[in-house]
Every structure is written in structure tokens, then in C-alpha cells.
């Protein structure tokens, strides 16, 4: 019920410091998730991994290990984006 209470209070111009703090923490958490599960960032990581392999700076085994990790991360990031968990902070932003 926090969401409803928070929204109703805000709509009538009342802010409660405790709720505001929770709200701020939620925004920080959402930004952290967005940063961590940003598909573009993961794709850049994949490209960088490919580039380092092509330039001969990492071995095939290192390349494949990093690639496999990043592909998992990318799938998760894309699912996270589809879920759009941070929709609430977007409304207020």
C-alpha cells in the first residue's frame, strides 16, 4: 500500500520525511538496476571483448569465457528492460 499512500499524499501536496526517504532510496535502487542491467552497456562489453580477441590481447579461452558471461548478462538485461520495473520513477522523473 506504500505506493498508493505515497501517491495520494503527494497529489494533495503532503510529504512525509520517512516516505520521502524510502522513495529516494527506491529511485537510487532503480538507477543502479538500470545501470547494471543496461543492454547497451553489455553490448559494448561484448564488442570490446571481440575487439581484444581480434587484436590478440586475450586468448580464445578468455574470449569465450567473457562472451558467455556477457551473453547471459545481456539476456537478463533485456528481460529486465521488458519488465520495465522502474516505471514508477520514470513517471515522477
Amino acid at each position: 500500500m506504500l505506493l498508493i499512500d505515497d501517491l495520494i499524499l503527494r497529489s494533495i501536496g503532503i510529504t512525509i520525511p520517512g516516505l520521502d526517504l524510502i522513495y529516494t532510496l527506491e529511485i537510487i535502487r532503480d538507477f543502479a538496476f538500470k545501470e547494471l542491467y543496461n543492454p547497451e552497456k553489455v553490448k559494448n562489453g561484448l564488442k570490446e571483448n571481440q575487439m581484444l580477441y581480434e587484436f590478440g590481447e586475450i586468448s580464445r579461452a578468455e574470449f569465450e569465457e567473457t562472451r558467455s558471461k556477457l551473453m547471459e548478462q545481456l539476456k537478463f538485461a533485456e528481460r529486465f528492460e521488458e519488465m520495465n520495473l522502474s516505471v514508477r520513477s520514470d513517471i515522477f522523473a
Partner: protein
Amino acid sequence: MNTDNENGRYVYCIIKAQEEQESFGNIGFQGKEVYTVKYKEFSPVVSDMPFKKYDIDNEEDIKIHTSVVNEVMKKYSVIPVAYGMVFKNKKLVDVSMRFGYKAMKKAMKIVDNKVELGVKIILPQDFDGNLQKVEQCKSEFSKSLKQIAFDSKNLNLFSKRLIMNGSFLVEKDKIQVFSDEVERLRTKYDSFKVRYSGPWSPYNFVDIHIMSQQRGGFR
């Protein structure tokens, strides 16, 4: 999604061919035949494949897609098609060709008799911090190669060590001149690491969206 649908057509690229149908042999996915289906002066290069999602982490399939396009490029100028473009049936290929016809005519004018060449420059692992030299290297590479190329694009610098990621559309008869210039600059700036790649089909110079706002077209 019905993954068993064998009426699907996977499109590798589009060419301008005179013949009604031409086979490039059994070089497609799972050894399937790669052949053309004609629409006016254009011919999509296809294989009969199931209508399903083609995963971007399937390195083997991506290699096959690239090798088919490279094979076709030996004989024709190609309008590239993104990996994973599969249509439910031949009729939908025809429909998309009809809707994309004008865009394809325009694209063919741009890519005809040209190839894409890539140049990446990265900082060495033990970079001494001489930013002036970095700027000089970037500037000279960019200026010299743009003079030879028909068109160029600066692509995403996806790594902190990447200082130049250029894609160049070059006429086929200028490939040697371009390559020689890359080699000259590589020798001049030998403290940087340079990767020269291609020839590729011109993915970065053609961007056709058919009946869809999303890349991937009408499927």
C-alpha cells in the same frame, strides 16, 4: 510460434540479378541451398528455413550468414540484410519486396560496385598519455581515408581504449589504394594498434525498414 514451419524463407541479402533464379549451392544453414527469388530487377538471396528466432549468440549461424553474403559478394553488389531475417513464407518475401522496392532502388545506387572497409585504432596497453599524438593520429587517419572513400561513418567508440572506429564505403577499384594508405598510416603511427577489416557488405550505409519501425522489417 510454429518452429516446424518449413515454408519459411531466410533472407541473406538482396542483389540485382538478370536471371530468374540462380543457385549459389548448398552453402546455407544446415547445408541448405542458397538461391535467388526474383522481384522485378532485384533478387533476394534465400534458403528454405523454418520460421523461428535466430539467436544472436549462435556464433556458427552468424558465420554461415556472413560466409553466404561473402560468397554472393564475389559476383554481385549486395544490399545487406541483418542476421535473423526470416519470413513465414515466400508470399511475405514478395510483399516486403513490393513495399521496400523504392528504398532498395535507392540503396542499390549507393552500394553498387562498392564495399565496406573497417578501421579500428586502439591505444596500446602501456599508453604513455600523449594526447596530442592521439589527436594527430585520429585526424590524419580520418582525413586521408575519407579522401579515398566514397562515404564514411564514425561508429560507436564502445571501449575506452578505442580512439577510432571508422567504416568506409569504397569503390571496388579503389580498394588497393585505400589498403596502401592504411598500411602507410599504420607504419607511421606504429605505437597504436590498428585493425583493418573487410571487405564487408555495406551494413553501415544501408538501413531499410519495411512496414515496421523496428529493424528487422516485416516478418
